[in-house]
């Protein structure tokens, strides 16, 4: 099943990078001369994950320009060879195979979403390539010792993150005593939902209703009726994309609004802007506020992102954890290459394991199980149609507090 998109399949960003430098005053230096270092990767430019690829592609373009604006990789310019895996793991597998054996790229970057990452990781392992990814929500699946996570899920987010949420819930008055856990059967959402139920019950929060729905579920009417009937104090939703909007709308059609609700991986724009989205919680790793904006390079990347995303007609042109993950992937690779002073995969991996890398997510280590460092998953809340980090308190934007719904 070919989607016949020859022009899209292969795109190098060197040309775009050079053009970008004329336009963007932040990048002052020309790309270093010399034969480009080619970094290959795929994104789901088409298919059901395509809306995420648009975000990652912009973030990657910005980072390639940034890196070329500094010193490239060891004084050579870099070129991102991007292919479209069509949201299919088998396509991702063969494309990584092609990138490594046919295109003979120097380095690779991971794709988006657990299934394509697992496919790419298998290929990387076979050829001894280092692979960095930012969106594998189930860390224990990352068993390859040269695979590195760019996003600080921590080694066991199904245990650590539910407790972050329970901590935040405990500060509400009155504190919720029961929660409905509703989740997509998408593996990374289901994984977190099971953890949420276990941890909640451990801490005395009852889970009277635990529901799983198939990814791509079309009608939430019956599910909403069950959630309403359970009428718990808190609603935890393991949602992807627009499912949260659909669930909240279905609930509103039944004239029911959960007092507080948490949404795992929603489409941030539509949920923030929806009338149903006010004060809902979600997971994040950073938002374009302090203290995150003070991290090195973050302000510039956020500005570029807004500019490009607006130009690309994306409805939510604000940098968030999605785009930041891709930025971190490139920051890690850049620091790994520079630190190891080598383009050799083994040396880069060895250096990363021994050192601390600074990314948009802050200082990052890879010394724990599955190459993960400490978890840093946060809670954000929609306040006045904008996402604000509200928990933990020390990372909340100045003057922002968790509001009880």
């Amino acid at each position, binding site marked *: 099943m070919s*989607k*016949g*998109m020859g022009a899209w399949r292969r795109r190098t960003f060197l040309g775009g990078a050079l053009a970008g430098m004329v336009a963007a005053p932040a990048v002052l230096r020309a790309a270093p001369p010399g034969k480009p270092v080619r970094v290959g990767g795929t994104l789901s*430019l*088409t*298919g*059901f*994950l*395509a*809306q995420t*690829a*648009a975000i990652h592609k912009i973030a990657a373009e910005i980072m390639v320009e940034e890196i070329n604006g500094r010193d490239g990789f060891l004084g050579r310019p870099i070129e991102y060879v991007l292919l479209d895996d069509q*949201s299919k793991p088998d396509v991702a597998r063969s494309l990584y195979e092609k990138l490594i054996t046919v295109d003979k790229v120097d380095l690779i970057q991971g794709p988006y979403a657990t299934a394509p990452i697992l496919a790419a990781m298998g290929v990387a392992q076979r050829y001894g390539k280092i692979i960095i990814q930012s969106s594998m929500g189930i860390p224990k699946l990352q068993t390859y010792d040269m695979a590195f996570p760019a996003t600080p899920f921590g080694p066991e987010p199904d245990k650590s993150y539910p407790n972050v949420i329970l901590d935040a819930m405990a500060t509400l008055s009155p504190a919720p005593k029961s929660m409905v856990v509703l989740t997509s*059967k998408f593996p990374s959402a289901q994984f977190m939902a099971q953890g949420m139920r276990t941890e909640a019950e451990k801490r005395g929060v009852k889970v009277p209703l635990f*529901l*799983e*729905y*198939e990814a*791509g*579920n*079309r*009608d939430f*009417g*019956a*599910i*909403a*009726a*069950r959630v309403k*009937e359970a009428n718990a104090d808190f609603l935890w939703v393991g949602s992807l*994309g*627009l499912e949260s*909007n*659909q669930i909240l*709308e*279905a609930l*509103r*059609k*039944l*004239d029911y609004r959960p007092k507080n609700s948490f949404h795992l991986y929603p*489409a941030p*724009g*539509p949920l923030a*802007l*929806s*009338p*149903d989205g006010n004060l809902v919680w979600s997971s994040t790793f950073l938002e374009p506020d302090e203290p995150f904006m003070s991290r090195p390079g973050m302000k510039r990347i956020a500005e570029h992102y807004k500019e490009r995303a607006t130009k*690309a*007609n*994306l*409805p*939510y042109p604000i940098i968030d954890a999605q785009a930041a993950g891709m930025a971190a992937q490139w920051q890690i690779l850049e620091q790994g290459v520079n630190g190891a002073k080598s383009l050799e995969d083994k040396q880069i991996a060895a250096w990363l394991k021994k050192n601390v890398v600074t990314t948009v997510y802050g200082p990052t280590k890879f010394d724990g199980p599955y190459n993960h460092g400490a978890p840093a998953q946060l809670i954000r809340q929609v306040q006045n149609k904008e996402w604000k980090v509200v928990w933990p308190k020390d990372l909340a934007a100045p003057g922002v507090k968790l509001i009880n719904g």
Partner: protein
Amino acid sequence: MPSATLLGQALISGVLAGGMYGLLALGLSLSWGLLRLVNLSHFALAFLAAYLTYEMGTTYHIDPWWSVLVIVPAMFVIGLLQHWVFDRFKVNELASLLITFSFAVILEVAIQLYWTADYRRFETHYSTLSIKVGAFYIPVLELILCLVAGVLAWGTWLWLRKTYVGKALRASAEDAEIAAAYGVDHKKLAYLLSGLGAAYAGVAGTFIALIATLAPAQIWAWLGVVFAVVIIGRLGNPLGALFAGMLIGASESIAMAVLSPAWAPVVSFSVLIVLLLWDPDWS
């Protein structure tokens, strides 16, 4: 055991959600049953109409009840053009699958180029309105959808039963050569029907824009269930398509309320298999 309120509410939601299946199945069932053309691009056309509704609503602030007056005739013309291709290349049932699949993929790419792959949501102040009847809530938009689908299905059914054109189409569908020998101009009728099918996709698209999520890949999300609905409702039978849609919608919804929501996708195909084996004669 779920409460009566929950079951009743699930039934209402399901039947109303099934109205969308029926509406999407309508055009597909007509072209498959009466022209022997399996139009996979029906869903892509519906989504094109949905995106146009979205665009006209968000960019130009045109109410969907007005934009539908432009979109549906435009879809009719697209249906005619599409049929010109079928006619020109003498496309048969199998080839129609391949050609319309390609057409759907091209439309998907075109939609993604213009509207990006990101989710689009057409927010309206009435999208979540409900009427309360006793203990139950009836969502207004879905109710209107079902009424429109009902009027279209009933009207089409009457048209096929009562008018010369409708009966000639059915005669042609059964045996085009014999019908031609009695003066039925199958070609002209086929154009009309193709246009009509696409126009129905346009109507469905308007409701998709108001009710569902827009993303290019969503074009394929309805495929399986609507195909099941078309077959359960019998090819070329508009009322069958609508009732089958509501049957599937209700079954899915009850399964979600009583068993687990994850059972929903299994339901439509289980119903299909049971009905194919049982083969009740209710046509």
